[in-house]
């Protein structure tokens, strides 16, 4: 897993309310920005099918450390942008929770974690491209940065909330969670490298998708079918 879905009931009630409120505020702000700017049909279609692809990719078992699963949220952020990336993170979390993966009550917290991955990855990628980085290192670094931000936010959310039923002081809890964050940072590097290769591949067949050429100049489909 490149991002952690916290288990149901892990947090006390006040934390559940807090993260849900913050998650709703983030999604509300995104929806407001999208509605204000006027969402185009192609953005709806891209977000819907992009979320489906992200959800499908999670089904693939990657043979690292016995098997890990990835949603490629960093890549989704790079391709779809910060606003649609945040919406995709929410929708993927809703579908994951409905299938028993992730927590229904922690949709707010999980959306904050995953949306931060997509948003940080997008802005990092754009910044690195402006600094004349090549596609592979820019994609890999941006995704790694985004996923690392998500992992650290996930750890911070656990430490701030505390674990339901645990008498452990915050300092000791921080030590316990540090291992989990460290493991996620390791996976972030692997997913970052994989994202770099995927971005490089996409740039070779559809450079408009990663912003290398104007989208309107690339009207021809690559003709990709399953």
């Amino acid at each position: 897993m490149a991002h952690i879905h916290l288990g149901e009931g892990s947090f006390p009630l006040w934390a559940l309310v807090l993260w849900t409120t913050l998650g709703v505020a983030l999604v509300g702000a995104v929806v407001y920005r999208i509605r204000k700017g006027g969402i185009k049909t192609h953005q709806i279609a891209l977000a819907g099918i992009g979320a489906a692809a992200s959800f499908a990719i999670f089904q693939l078992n990657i043979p690292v450390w016995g098997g890990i699963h990835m949603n490629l949220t960093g890549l989704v952020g790079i391709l779809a942008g910060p606003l649609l990336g945040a919406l995709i993170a929410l929708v993927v979390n809703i579908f994951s929770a409905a299938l028993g993966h992730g927590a229904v009550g922690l949709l707010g917290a999980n959306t904050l974690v995953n949306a931060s991955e997509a948003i940080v990855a997008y802005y990092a990628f754009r910044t690195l491209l402006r600094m004349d980085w090549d596609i592979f290192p820019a994609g890999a670094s941006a995704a790694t940065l985004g996923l690392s931000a998500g992992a650290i936010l996930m750890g911070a959310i656990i430490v701030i909330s505390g674990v339901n039923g645990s008498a452990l002081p915050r300092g000791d809890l921080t030590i316990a969670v540090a291992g989990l964050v460290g493991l996620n940072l390791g996976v972030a590097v692997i997913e970052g490298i994989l994202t770099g290769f995927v971005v490089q591949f996409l740039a070779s067949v559809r450079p408009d998708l990663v912003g290398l050429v104007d989208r309107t100049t690339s009207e021809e489909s690559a003709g990709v079918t399953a």
Partner: protein
Amino acid sequence: MTTLSNHVPDPRLITAYSEHREGPLHRVNPWTKVGVVGALVLAVTVVESLPVLAGLYAATLVVYGIAGLPYRRLGYWYTLPLLFVVSVAGPLAFLEPGVPIGGALTTPIGELSVTWAGASLFGELTCRSLTVVTFALTATMTTRYADIAYLLGRLLPRPIDQVALLTYRFTFVMIETLEDLVKGVLARGASLSEFWANRRIYARILGMTLLTAIERSERLVKSMEARGYDGDITLYGDVPRPPAREVVAVVACYAGIVAYTLVVAYQVIPV
């Protein structure tokens, strides 16, 4: 060999159960199931007694069985939720203060032991997580595709509902696309057993999956606009309000949880 996982629930199998099986839970109103999921989330958050949590978990397991759903599959699907429990509660079981179980192991960094409080916490977190996982799967495996689409359309604000409806529709297509791509590279002699040696093949599979998704979305835009799409994917289905007895049952669930919270969990009302 890398394939699609059997420990991650396959939406196609879940939909097959909801569409082609007929059990007692299939006849329960979808709104009622949503209400029960909310009640269970609240319950596992406020209840702190291991026997009560274990009872709740046992009850959801019984409901899962009554619905005629497969326990063996459920065992596979528990892999990821249990991994998350272990990743959080595992270290806590050792760090939690209390009386050690069966003595302590001396290590260079000090004595290491699982305490009774740590083991109890592990059990609590496991029951909390698996209770909702089990019922969420029960609900999705007994609710028809059209009904889930209707609930998504009603519960989520625009444009999230539109994105969610397209995601639900195309999840099945994208999984088949990914499966075809994996089969294709395996048929051409590739080995996906090691990640690093095959990183470019993985990138190509994932890149092609995303590219297929994007190209499909571009074709979809044309067909949506040709049909006069104005920001609303019309849903022709309808999920009626739940019958009175189901409403009473859901209200009773919430009332019980609120009473438990006030009396036992937070002791706002002394007994």
